[in-house]
Structure formats: structure tokens, C-alpha cells
């Protein structure tokens, strides 16, 4: 991957020179624009991280998973289902715990693997793409994103039941 990116960069500079474009100026202009992201990005991330850390550090997620209905399922798997839309590293840690506890090919491990790899952190993406650019009225987008995450989790269960 690193090689590809480096070759990609060299290729762009070569092609740009061939097309008589001012690569240096274009690069600096792009970098300047990149930096304007800093304030919106920082503020959006501040809000998001506040939110995530509060959920995790107070152990709220853990407590929800102790509710009796969910006794038959692994509590890590349940935590993962709730945590995935918020935090990729958090659910990766949970995935690791599930692997340690049940081994790689257990039912729970396979479902967890599918959850981790076939969805993405919706709330983080929403903050990054919509929040930092100041896009308001995003409830439809976020709602749809979360709904699709839930759908993907459902598919993960179905897929594991059918194939494993």
C-alpha cells in the first residue's frame, strides 16, 4: 500500500509537469485549503469524543448489556453491536476479546467479524463529513446510516447462521 501511494504521488507530479501545470503552486494551494478544515474538524471531533468517552467510561454500555433478555448472547458481542457506530477502535478491542474468549471460528466470532468489517462508524463519518462542513438538518442521513448499520448486523447474523 505504501508503495502504491508513493508511486501515485510521483505519477501525479510527472503528469502535471508534462501538462505544464504549476505543481508547486497547486500543491501549496491545496494544502492551504486542507488547513481550513482544522477548526471545523476539531470542534466536530470534540463533540464526538466527548460523547463517545462518556458512554464508554461510565460503563453505561456494560450495564445495558446485563439486562436479562440478552443473557444467551455474549456480552462482548452485544456491546460491540452498540459500540460499532460510535467507535472503530473500541469495537476492534471488543473483537479481540471475543477472539480470545471463543477462538476464531465460533458463531459469535464470525458474527463479530462481519459486524466489524462490513459496516463503518456511522457517527464518526457523520461528524467528519457533515458536521465539520457545517451541514445542518442531517437527521435523515444519520438516521438512515444507523438503520443500515442495524440491517448489516441483522445480515451478519443471518449470514453466519446460513454458512457456518
Amino acid at each position: 500500500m505504501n508503495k502504491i501511494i508513493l508511486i501515485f504521488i510521483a505519477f501525479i507530479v510527472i503528469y502535471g509537469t508534462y501538462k505544464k501545470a504549476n505543481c508547486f503552486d497547486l500543491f501549496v494551494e491545496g494544502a492551504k485549503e486542507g488547513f481550513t478544515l482544522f477548526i471545523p474538524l476539531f470542534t466536530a471531533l470534540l463533540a464526538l469524543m466527548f460523547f463517545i468517552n462518556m458512554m464508554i467510561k461510565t460503563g453505561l454500555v456494560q450495564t445495558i448489556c446485563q439486562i436479562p433478555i440478552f443473557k444467551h448472547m455474549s456480552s462482548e458481542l452485544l456491546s460491540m453491536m452498540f459500540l460499532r457506530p460510535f467507535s472503530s477502535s473500541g469495537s476492534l478491542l471488543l473483537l479481540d476479546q471475543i477472539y480470545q474468549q471463543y477462538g476464531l471460528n465460533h458463531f459469535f466470532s464470525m458474527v463479530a467479524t462481519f459486524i466489524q468489517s462490513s459496516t463503518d462508524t456511522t457517527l464518526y463519518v457523520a461528524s467528519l463529513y457533515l458536521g465539520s462542513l457545517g451541514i445542518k438538518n442531517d437527521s435523515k442521513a444519520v438516521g438512515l446510516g444507523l438503520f443500515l448499520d442495524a440491517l448489516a448486523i441483522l445480515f451478519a447474523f443471518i449470514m453466519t447462521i446460513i454458512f457456518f
Partner: protein
Amino acid sequence: MNKIWSVCIVICICYGLLTHQENTLFALLFEVPNDALNMALKLTLNACFFNGILNMANGCGLLDKVSHLIQPILKHLFKGVNQETMGYISVHLLSNLFGLGSVATISGLKAMRLLKEATPDRLSKAMMTLFILNTTGLSFFPSTVVALRQTYDTTHSADFIPYTIMISLLALSVGLLIINYKYRE
């Protein structure tokens, strides 16, 4: 976003107070800005560099060439989007599929920014589509999960990928169908 955020913050504070975790919560108030700053700084510096690279590519017409390659597929999803934005969207999708994270984030942000300039007051169909494409996480090679599995057992660590792709595609199709239905013109 506002509702989820507000409700959860209040619930977490109440829960924290009830379980006597005031100190943890209070310490959080000082740790979080630090963590957020580090993360935002890393992302911004990354953004500066790769936006520079992409601006070069845009300036010499390379992005237009790239978008021509994928245009047949994207034409139907992103009607009415201008040429420059199409270029960034194409780069974004391709780099997401191949796991080139840094390039993907930047081109996605730039594409979203351009789309916002086109329709400043509302969330257009193109923006929704871009967002959903991102959040369903379609990728040919989920490198982090494969790497994690390899630390346990090197033989079958990538076997789950075909199923993952199927699930992502299913979720994506449902998402696209819903968007097309809601934004029918």
C-alpha cells in the same frame, strides 16, 4: 445528530452521578479536548498533504480522466453533479475500495464540500448517496480485521471477506433504494 448527542450526554451525566463516578467524569472534561486536539491535528496535517496532492492531480486534468473510467457506473447514482466533483467522488470511491484511507478521507471531504457549495441550503441526493456509500463501508480488503485474525491463526484469516462484501453490498443496495425512493424527481 443533535437529538442523539444531547440525549446521550444527559443520560451519561445522570448515570455517572448516580454511580458516584463524578471524578472520572470530571477528569474526562480535561482529557477529551486533549485527545480531540491530537486527533484533529493528525487528520488536518494529513488533509493538508493529500489535499495538496489531489489539487495537483485536479489541476492537470488527471481526476477528470479517472472519473471517465468509472463514469458508466456512477452516472446513475450521481446525476447532475459537475465534472470536478465527479473527479473527487471517483477518487474517493476507488481509494475506499482499495483501502487507501488517507486519500479516501480527503477526497471525500473535498467532494462533500463541493456538493455543499452546489446546494448550500439542503441535503441533496448526491450528498446522501456519498454519505451512505461511506457509512456502509464497502471495501475489498478490510486490513485491520485481517491483521487481527492473523495474530491468532495465519491459515484462514481472510476467508470471511467474500461474505463481508456480500453483506456490505446488501446494506448498500437497501440504502440506495431508500434514497432513490425518497428523492424521486
